[in-house]
């Protein structure tokens, strides 16, 4: 049941914000992979200026700051837009959460420069970036025509419960992303992130396969599950490629392009994995009905 009027402009703006945030994640990944994190020693200005000469690592670090500023501005526009057209109070709350997250993200970015990249600030900055991206994707989802058209309820099969399981995927992915960030910022050995990968992949496959085997008649859940599986498998491949190039270039005196490419793609697809798992969890909560036993489910399925 629709409770809100669809705003094409707000939805498209939300998609643009999510896209720009993904670009920002890529730019941030480039800063770390190019070892450019401290190429601009001061903050919030860069070499005491708004626009330093864009050379070497400064191109990546100051470029990242410029994209971040743009995303911050876009988030403010989103907030104002949502407050003007949205009647759903929780959407307004989410818009405020998004703005607070992007402000906190900027502060963490500045602090990690001023305190010379302490791992816990850098890793929190990296993880919050992924979380913020998921927030923007969620806003795009909530403003979509499909969302406003209302849910398509399927009963929860008591033999194959999904509600709790669907939360396990984003939590595992987030922990794995934090481990990855800690590896990148030299707080942990790569072994922790590598050992986490099969566990997270197993949880993702478990959730997705349960949907495809038992809830596939719901188009939203089916699409989200297929998307999550696909993105996760691409992510696993990128992780292996990033690790192998890192070994191959262990003696390099500077970041090598192939290693940078695979690593940054791994970071970006990591953000997509988290967003896909959160969207899946949201859609499960939206579309799942009361829990029923198998005979009841069969009767429902026949009548459907």
């Amino acid at each position, binding site marked *: 049941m629709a409770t809100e009027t669809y705003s094409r402009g707000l939805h498209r703006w939300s998609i643009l914000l999510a896209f720009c945030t993904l670009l920002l994640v890529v730019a941030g990944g480039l800063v770390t992979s190019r070892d450019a994190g401290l190429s601009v020693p*001061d903050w919030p200005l860069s*070499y005491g200026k708004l626009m330093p000469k864009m*050379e*070497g*690592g400064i191109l990546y670090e100051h470029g990242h700051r410029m994209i971040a500023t743009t995303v911050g501005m876009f988030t403010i526009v989103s907030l104002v837009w949502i407050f003007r057209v949205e009647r759903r109070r929780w959407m307004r709350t989410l818009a405020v959460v998004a703005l607070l997250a992007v402000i906190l993200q900027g502060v963490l970015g500045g602090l990690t420069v001023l305190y*010379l990249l302490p791992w816990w600030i850098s890793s*929190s900055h990296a993880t919050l970036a992924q979380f913020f991206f998921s927030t923007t994707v969620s806003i795009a989802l909530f403003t979509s025509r499909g969302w406003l058209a209302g849910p398509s*309820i399927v009963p929860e099969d008591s033999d194959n419960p999904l509600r709790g399981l669907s939360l396990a995927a984003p939590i595992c992915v*987030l922990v794995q992303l934090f481990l990855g960030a800690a590896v990148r910022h030299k707080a942990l050995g790569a072994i922790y992130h590598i050992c986490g990968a099969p566990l997270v992949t197993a949880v993702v496959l478990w959730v997705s396969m349960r949907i495809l085997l038992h809830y596939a008649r719901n188009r939203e859940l089916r699409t989200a599950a297929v998307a999550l599986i696909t993105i996760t498998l691409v992510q696993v491949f990128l992780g292996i490629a990033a690790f192998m190039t890192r070994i191959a270039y262990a003696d390099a*005196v500077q970041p090598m392009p192939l290693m940078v490419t695979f690593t940054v793609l791994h970071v970006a697809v990591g953000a997509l994995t988290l967003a896909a798992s959160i969207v899946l969890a949201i859609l499960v909560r939206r579309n799942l009905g009361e829990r029923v036993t198998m005979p009841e489910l069969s009767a429902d399925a026949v009548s459907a």
Partner: protein
Amino acid sequence: MSKWELKPRSLATVFLPFALVLAGCGGGSAPAPQTKAALPEGHVDPATAGTISGRILFQGTAPVMPLIDMSSNPSCERQHKAQAKAETVVVNPNGTLRYAYVRIKEGLAPAHWTPPAESVKLTQDGCIYEPHVVGLMVDQTLEILNDDPVNHNVHAESQINPAWNISEAPRDEHKFRKFSSEEILFPMTCSVHPWMRSLIAVSSHPFFAVTGEDGTFSLTGVPPGTYTIEVIQEKLGRKEGKVTLAASGTATLDFTYGN
């Protein structure tokens, strides 16, 4: 509101775990600086002081150093007639190693040694640090020069001494820094040009050397005694040797690395 629409509580259920995980991040601490004990002033009697010298040899096939790709920064690239190479392992034509750091590790009586008044220079020239390995004493001044037409940042990645990161604009005023604790070999890096890396050794006494184009070292004005001499090569590792120095004497000790 439909019962299937998301409520604030539902949103919190989805997002709160992530917020909690992020909020839980924290902790960690930098290594505490070494404290200076009240020590007698270091003194050398010129009448009995001697010299410990030697060579740092390399046997086998010299490793091929990777070329540095400066194409991302033409201002750096233009300053080199040929493509610059990494200086991780530099084997001299006479089969010795350049940029090995040699010091007395053990054997000196505990003392506080006064650092020389002269500064030790670290130059950024052609987007390369010169020299690649720098030795200086605790509280001696490190003078950092930028001879390049580009911005550099200078990041001391020290663990015992407080780390710092400063910018140095083209032909900027020289920067001066001191280190208050002994710390042997930590990197000095530039994030603008990620290939730029030098190693800094801060010694509590004056008996150290960095090998040059002839691969030799000479520790002069050393009091007589038995010492452990340590050599550190950033890629090939550490070696130690014992030597006894007679009054007004000389002692020789060679070290050999190889592959």
